[in-house]
Structure formats: C-alpha cells, structure tokens
C-alpha cells in the first residue's frame, strides 16, 4: 500500500515537473510585466497577445502600445477594458503622453468623450489644462474654483499672457505702412524696427537729394531701394506679428506643460497592475 502511494505521488510530481514550461497565462503575464518594466515593449506585447483576456492584460497591452507610440492600438485596448479604475489609469497615461509629445487634438475627443472617466476631482486640472492648451479657452469659473489654488492662479496668469501675446498681423502691416518699422516695434522686434526705419529714411532722403540736384539715374536707384525697403518693412511686420504670436503661444504651452509636470498634475494609475521596481 505504502509503495503504491509513494509511486502515485512521485509519478504525479515528476509529470508536473516535466510539464512546467513557463508558458501558462499567469506566468506569461508576470513575465510580460517584467519585460514592460525593463523597457522591452515589443517582447511584452508578443507575450500578452496570446493571452489577451481580462482587464489587467488589456491594461498592460495598452501601456506597452502607448510606450511604443501606437495610439490607435492603445485605444483598442482602452475600449476592451471594463474596469473603470483601470480605464481611467490608462487614459491618464495617454493624456500624459499626448501632452508631453504635444500631439494636439489627436485623441482629445476620444479621451474626453466619456465624462465618467473623469469623475475624480483630482483629474480636473488635466481636463482644464487640456482645454486651455488644445481648445484655447479658459474653462468656466465653477470648474476653475474646484481646481487647486496654485494651479488656478497659474492658469489665470497664463491666460492673461496669452491675451497679451496675440499680435494682429494686419495691424502690424498697417502701422509699418504709416511709419516704416513701427509694425515690427509693435511685434516687439525693436532692433529690426529701428533698422527698417533708418534704412527706408536714408534711401528716401538720398532720393530727395538726387531729385533736387537733378541726378535722375541716381534718384531712380535710391528711389527703388527706398521703395524696396518700405515694402519689405510692411511684409516683414506682417510676418513678424505672425511669428511673435506663434512664439508666444509655444512658450505659454511649454510653460504650462512644465508646470503640470513639476506639480505632478497627472496622478498615477489608481490600481497598478504591474508595479515596476
């Protein structure tokens, strides 16, 4: 009897030993987590695809795709997740990635389509920042009041800066048409404005002098140059205003992103599936 029992137990244990191949779904998932944590995203995806069942797997797959910058695949995984917390975690990471990579409008509607994903008050700064950056309007005061004071103040300050950082290109061109170089000064290009004014003035003066002394050829040459600089000043002022507005907007954007990163406006996922050490 004892011998029989021994053989049975020994046999079962031996068979188990032979069967262990580290390819069961649980082991694959654990290994995929390790691959993800060590930055081997392609390999992690290959491990996860055969076992793509369950929220945790979809979440990890989504994170891998996100790390690989494959946004459409990330969204597919996002839609497959049923657990709200996990979904919200992945959306936050998506938002972070998008904000950092400055991919404007790419997933905005998708990420914010479902209001329930952002029921958490802590997610409010993310929403507000997105609207501020991508939709270019300041959210209403109710929403602002609910957000943290430091964030609110910063955003209001940025909003004022943005209002002041808008330069009208037509106005700049008009100013330069009246006084050469004034449009450039309006667009805060002081040196260029002064240079433009002096050059146009110099050639105009030379033209007048040449006309006065009946030097027709010279008058033509200097007159053409004066006209060239005058026209250049108008076109240049228009371009400067456009450029200055863009630069100002870019600086506001990067400051806002920097502020959000510094103040950790993005929360970590509420339920970490694979904690990386």
């Amino acid at each position: 009897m004892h011998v029989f029992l021994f053989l049975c137990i020994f046999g079962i244990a031996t068979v188990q030993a032979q069967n262990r191949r580290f390819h069961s779904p649980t082991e694959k998932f654990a290994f995929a987590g390790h691959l993800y944590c060590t930055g081997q995203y392609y390999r992690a995806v290959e491990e996860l695809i055969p076992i793509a069942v369950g929220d945790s797997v979809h979440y990890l797959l989504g994170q891998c795709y996100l790390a690989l910058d494959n946004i459409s695949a990330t969204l597919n995984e996002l839609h497959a997740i049923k657990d709200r917390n996990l979904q919200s975690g992945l959306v936050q990471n998506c938002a972070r990635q998008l904000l950092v990579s400055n991919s404007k409008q790419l997933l905005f509607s998708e990420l914010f389509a479902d209001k329930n994903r952002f029921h958490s008050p802590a997610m409010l700064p993310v929403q507000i920042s997105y609207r501020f950056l991508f939709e270019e309007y300041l959210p209403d005061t109710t929403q602002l009041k609910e957000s943290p004071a430091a964030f609110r103040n910063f955003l209001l300050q940025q909003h004022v800066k943005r209002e002041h950082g808008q330069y009208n290109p037509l106005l700049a061109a008009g100013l330069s048409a009246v006084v050469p170089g004034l449009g450039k000064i309006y667009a805060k290009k002081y040196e260029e404005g002064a240079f433009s004014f002096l050059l146009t003035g110099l050639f105009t003066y030379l033209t007048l002098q040449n006309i006065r002394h009946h030097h027709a050829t010279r008058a033509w040459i200097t007159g053409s140059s004066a006209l060239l600089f005058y026209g250049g000043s108008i076109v240049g002022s228009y371009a400067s205003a456009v450029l200055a507005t863009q630069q100002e907007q870019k600086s506001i954007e990067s400051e806002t992103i920097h502020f959000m990163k510094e103040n950790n406006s993005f929360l970590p996922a509420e339920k970490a599936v694979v904690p990386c050490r």
Partner: protein
Amino acid sequence: MPVKALIFWIIFCAAHFPGFCQENTALLHQLQFADSLLSSGNPYDAVTEYERVLFFDTRRQFTFRVLAGKASAYHQGGKYQEAAECAELAIDAAPGISKIREMQFFLIQNRLLQHNTAAVYGLLDAMRQNKANDTIAAALQYWYGWAKMFDDDWEQAANYFGECDSADFLKNFCLDVHNKKYPVSFIKFISLVLPGSGSIYTGHYLSGALSLGWNVLFGYLSVHAFQEQRILDGFLIADLLWLRFYTGSLENAEKYAIEANKKIYIESLHFLETEYQGAKP
C-alpha cells in the same frame, strides 16, 4: 521511531524530491530551448527565452549561462551594444577564471565590431595587468593586433602579430597592407614642389594633368604681367587664379591619398572577414 512514521517520512521526502528538482529541470529545458533557437538562427526569440529563464530563475543558478547566451544572441542579431552590456554582466556573474576570460574575449570581439577600439585597449590593458593572465599573453597580443588593424595602424598590428607564434599570415598581411598604403605627407610634399604630381601619384592622371596645366598657365600669366609692369594684373592673377589652383592641387592630392587609403583599409578588413580562417571578430 515507529516504522509507520519512518515510512511516511520516506514517502514524503521522496515525493517532494521532484518538486525540488522541478524548477531546475524546467529551467534547464527552457535554457535548452533558448539555445536551440539561437543555434537555429533565431536570435530575437532566443533573447526572449533567455530573458524568461532569467526571470523565473529565482535562485540565480543559470545567470551566467543565460547572460552569455543573451550576449551571443544579440551579437548574432547585430545588436552589438546590447551584446556588450550582456557580456559585461556575464563577466560579473562568471563562475570561474576560464569563463571570465571567455566572456572577456567575446567582449573584445564585440567591441571591435563596434569599432570601439578605445574600449578594447582598456579591456586588454586591464587583462594584461592581471597576473593570472600571464599564461594567455600571446592571445592578448593577438587581439591588440586586431585592435590596431581596426585603428588603421597596420605596421603596429604587424609588430603585435610578430610576437604571436601562430599569426605569421596576419603579420605578413599587415605588412603588405602597410606597404600598399599611400604616404599622405610625401604626396603633399611632391604636390607642393610640382602641382598635380600628387594626384598623378595616386592614379588620378587627368586631374593631375589639369592641375599642372592650370598652374603653368596662370603662373606664366602672372609672371608675364609682372614683367610688363602690370603689377595689379600680376597680383590679381597670382592671388585669385594661380594660388587658387595651387592650393587646390595640394588639397586634391591629400584627399585622393586619404580616399585611397580608406579603400585599402576597407578592402583589407573585408578580405579578413571573408577569407581569414583563424580567430576573428
């Protein structure tokens, strides 16, 4: 102790023995699977499987073998930097001096393929300083020679191979290459004396002849202008035309010599890669 209890303990221990072996056996199977992938020319999957062994090998029994395998797989896949990183980790995990040396030589070959000769010299110097490596001094000289070849210093490489017993072929080959190479300074010098001669020396006959022709023409014109007291013309022709072709001839000669030497360097390494049968990166 009662007999029944004794029997129970014997059964218990015997039944759990496979359990203790279980991890080992399975890991060994996994390792063999990874090795088979590597030997069948599938380095990408081999790396994944080695990584799997590393992850599940909680007792760190196969660390060296896995890291060495991973390094080989990366090497086979042309990922030399990753291979070097794995080899460095494998050296730290190596169980004995022979395994350490094996990985060090692997690392040297890998670094050579990366053209990172500074790292090779560093590694070889460190190995030479270790007294335990006195027995493999010839092998060290051999790899110094290879590093010098990759550094395009064929004469020095021949010297290193001269100190090895079984590297006569490489020594003679290096001397041949050294003799075949164009002396850049000499070529510049002859171009300085006779414009265009450097280009002709490197086999660019038309370019050399044209250079010589332009220099003769503008030299004649500027001298002629000075002789006729047209000083400004003389200066302008000499400065803007003659000097331009004279310096151009010099630069061309140097460029052709460097290009020809580069071609010789590439062809020589290619020959070694395809034809040489001994130890090579």
